């Protein structure tokens, strides 16, 4: 990695100040995405702002009909949190399948959502549940937050502070892993809330997206059979040495079916 300056602020305000002062500064949370990039010299930040000392970014809280998860909360904590398991078991289950033990004990929800890797797990849950992303300046609806491969509505220097999830009536997640990286090859998060049904697809395309036809089918009939006949178009999906766009499109239907089945 290249040399950089290192800061460890203890408040969101200080972190934002440090980021504002240096356009080439980067925040770091669990480092599970940023550190490998630095080690490969794919990134050359002038300074690193370590968020791990900021208490405001930690903790999982139930606030009425919402579950609020601080940006620094690790995958392992979400997977094992009694609050999450009670409110959104599918979210806990999903977090427990991210990467491996080491990754889950370092990686954070804030880092994952801010990074918006098309093959990451969290974006599907955030979009599928219709969550709200809270930053140091504003609140952003999931539908507006994710803007395609590694791109989000976050502005330079803006910090993701928490994610607020509505508590669904039912939710489920299923994914097929990429055989090599074990990130998501095609995944589907389904949720039914009082506002309706949402279906979010990750892994298969260049970014997480909603599957409208499946949403309609499930709104009419919440059952695996309802989505089994809905075909995802391969147009615009990813194709690589691990599988064609057609294969991924097919997996979307299979995973949707399994996600609904797991939601019960």
């Amino acid at each position: 990695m290249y040399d950089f300056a290192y800061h460890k602020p203890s408040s969101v305000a200080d972190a934002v100040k440090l980021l504002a002062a240096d356009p080439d500064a980067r925040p770091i949370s669990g480092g599970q995405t940023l550190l490998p990039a630095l080690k490969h010299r794919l990134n050359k930040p002038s300074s690193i702002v370590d968020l791990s000392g900021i208490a405001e970014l930690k903790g999982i809280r139930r606030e009425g009909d919402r579950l609020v998860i601080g940006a620094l909360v690790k995958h392992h904590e979400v997977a094992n949190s009694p609050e999450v398991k009670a409110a959104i078991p599918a979210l806990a289950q999903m977090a427990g399948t991210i990467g491996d033990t080491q990754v889950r004990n370092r990686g954070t929800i804030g880092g994952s959502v801010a990074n918006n890797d098309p093959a990451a797990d969290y974006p599907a849950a955030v979009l599928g549940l219709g969550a709200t992303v809270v930053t140091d300046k504003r609140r952003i609806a999931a539908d507006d937050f994710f803007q395609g491969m590694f791109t989000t509505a976050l502005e330079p220097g803006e910090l993701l502070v928490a994610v607020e999830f509505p508590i669904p009536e039912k939710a489920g997640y299923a994914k097929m892993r990429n055989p090599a990286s074990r990130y998501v090859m095609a995944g589907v998060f389904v949720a039914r809330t009082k506002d309706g049904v949402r279906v979010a697809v990750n892994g298969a395309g260049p970014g997480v997206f909603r599957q409208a036809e499946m949403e309609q089918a499930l709104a009419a009939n919440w059952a695996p059979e309802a989505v089994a006949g809905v075909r995802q178009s391969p147009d615009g999906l990813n194709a690589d040495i691990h599988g064609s766009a057609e294969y991924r499109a097919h997996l979307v239907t299979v995973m949707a079916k399994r996600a609904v089945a797991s939601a019960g």
Partner: protein
Amino acid sequence: MNVVAPFEGIGASVKRKEDLRFLSGRGQYTDDIDRPGQTYACILRSPHAHALIRGIDLAAAKAMPGVVAIFTGADMTGIGGLPCGWQIHNKDGSPMAEPPHPVLAQGKVRHVGDSVAVVIAGTRAQARDAAEAIEVDYEVLPAVATMEAALGAGAPRVHDGVEGNLCYDWHIGDPAVNAAAFRGAHKVVEFDLVNNRLIPNAMEPRAAVGDYDPTTGDYTLYTTSQNPHVIRLLMGAFVLQLPEHKLRVVAPDVGGGFGSKIFHYAEEAIVTWAAGKLARPVKWTADRTESFITDAHGRDHVTKARLALDKDGRFLALHVRTLANMGAYLSTFSTSVPTYLYATLLAGVYTTPTVYAEVKAVFTNTTPVDAYRGAGRPEATFLLERLVDVAAREMGMDRVEIRRRNFIPADAYPYQTPVALQYDSGDHVATLDEALKVAQWDSFEARRAEAKTRGKLRGIGISTYLEACGIAPSAVVGALGARAGLYEVGTIRVHPTGSVTVLTGTHSHGQGHETTLAQLVTDRLGVPLAQVDIVHGDTAKIPFGMGTYGSRSLAVGGSAMVKAMDKIVAKARKIAAHLLEASVEDVEFDRGTFRVAGTDRTKSWGEICLTAYVPHNYPIEEIEPGLEETAFYDPKNFTYPGGCHICEVEIDPETGHVDVVNFTAVDDVGRVINPMIVEGQVQGGVAQGIGQALLETAVYDENGQLLSASFMDYQMPRAGDLPPVSVATHATLCTHNPLGVKGCGEVGAIGSPPAVINAVVDALKEFGVRHIEMPATPAKIWNIIHADHKLAAE
């Protein structure tokens, strides 16, 4: 009377002596070695598969902080290229094409990762920073990334002097006899298949530290090698022209090799040479990306085969035509792998009377390819065991029955094959029957039916194989083109109080020699295991050695130790006879006790050892003091482990995912010294075999860029991918080495891939699948299922 705990000798599953060191993080690997005043090397690597170097501008790089020196090919013209250790001859008798393999590129790069320049600096980061500042003016040339492209008319040449990119066109067997046998056949089964290219991925990346003492002119190279003496010989004699007494090569703890650390690599010569030039130690450690693009890859064959059968399913003749990818340069043993380690195995466990094999070795603009766990034998086994399954199906015969009908019977040993080898022992019916029983082969259809109720496609596959290892008789391999002898060396150093240090020319990089080889001493001399230490991996300590590969350590290295122990016992008996005032003929030795036959007059091991070093009362006229013996052992033949592997899989037809649900290995590895270590070796080999069959493959694009150049895209097997592997052994003893051992290091990787693919094909039989190329990935299987049978997602 017998002080030795018998459970530490041959046959005891004692725990590995080395594991405390490894499991507690206290191994000493090459990168752990730091020399005073050390500098760090970073190699600038070619980003192109094929390009001319029009110029290299070092000005900016030289001005970077910490830079000590930068060298390019222009600085290294005085030294030799990396040698190839095995010369193959063409069908017409002419020698193979052997283009130079420069240590640093000379005007042209031939694969992504080819070394262009080396920066030596005060820190690793400084070296890398400066390497990034080097400006190379490349003229990119069209590349040949596949053998098909390389052999095409008018293809670009990897080496200007090598016409048609053909390294050699070799054959074995009698073409006329073979052709005649085909004419009389009831049926001919034709079959094409690919053996996928693999990237070894040892846990420890390669590393090398060069050191030079200007006051003595002594060089030391610490390196991640499976065979330090071979590196000293190749690098000293062919590359740097350094005599052995001025060059010490140390291979300390090495974190896995699987073949990839046999070969002499450019970086070893670079750090040694640069240390001399700069009179400062130079360290280089590969990062994982460098390992992917510069460690020699494995396999990569494309084969067309024809099998002739009579009406009863007996094999009459086999004809095989194989293209073998050499990559851009000839790595040390690359040329032997698809010839003498592959085609000579094409009789397998069968009585096929005539085998004719033609092998073309091809240069491409890819990383060099060389021996990888099994080296040639997995390729032969995969071909044969797939072909036999296809033949069974096309003859309407049972897969097991066709094998039984063609087995070499146990009483036919020693058995001369039509492709040079003479197998010494084996019992294929025994290993087959045992495996069928353990795997519950006969009740499989019930399990298939049950899986179906869960929506899963279940299949079972079998492979009955044999391999040749314990390499090898020097005279034989010499006649076949090897430029080295393949004996092994062992020194038994008995200390005055009776403990023992063994110096062995083999090298342990995961195999557990420090335990297994010590067990040989315990068994023979009666010295407790705790009092036996094995020393390996240092040319300054060990007289000589050819190292560890080809499952040779026990069969060849262990046999050398037995010979040395024979000499120790002979001398010790003389000392005992003197002390016991008996004649030598009357003195018996049994694990620690010398006894005058038929009496209770004895001397202990300790007394004899002490006497050897404190020779007050000693037959000094007859023998010298001391108790240390060395033996060189040259094997009389290869050893021939074999056995039967059975794999059971379940496929999810919706995703194409293959779950290996059961794996049974019943192997004949000859006498078993430590059953626990054998089990571990077999399991590890099977893991690699499952990796090859289902997960791993090196993929190049048409420009010669490696697409699977990280673990994000290259699928290493993980614990969760692997089934419980049931390992059993059934020994027929090797008849020509003193221990009766055959070798267990590679059997797992050799026998398993066809068992896995046979199971996958069996699971998919309702789709009319004849073959599926490795790795059988979910996407590939999904394509097969959906090609002619649009399985609805519902």
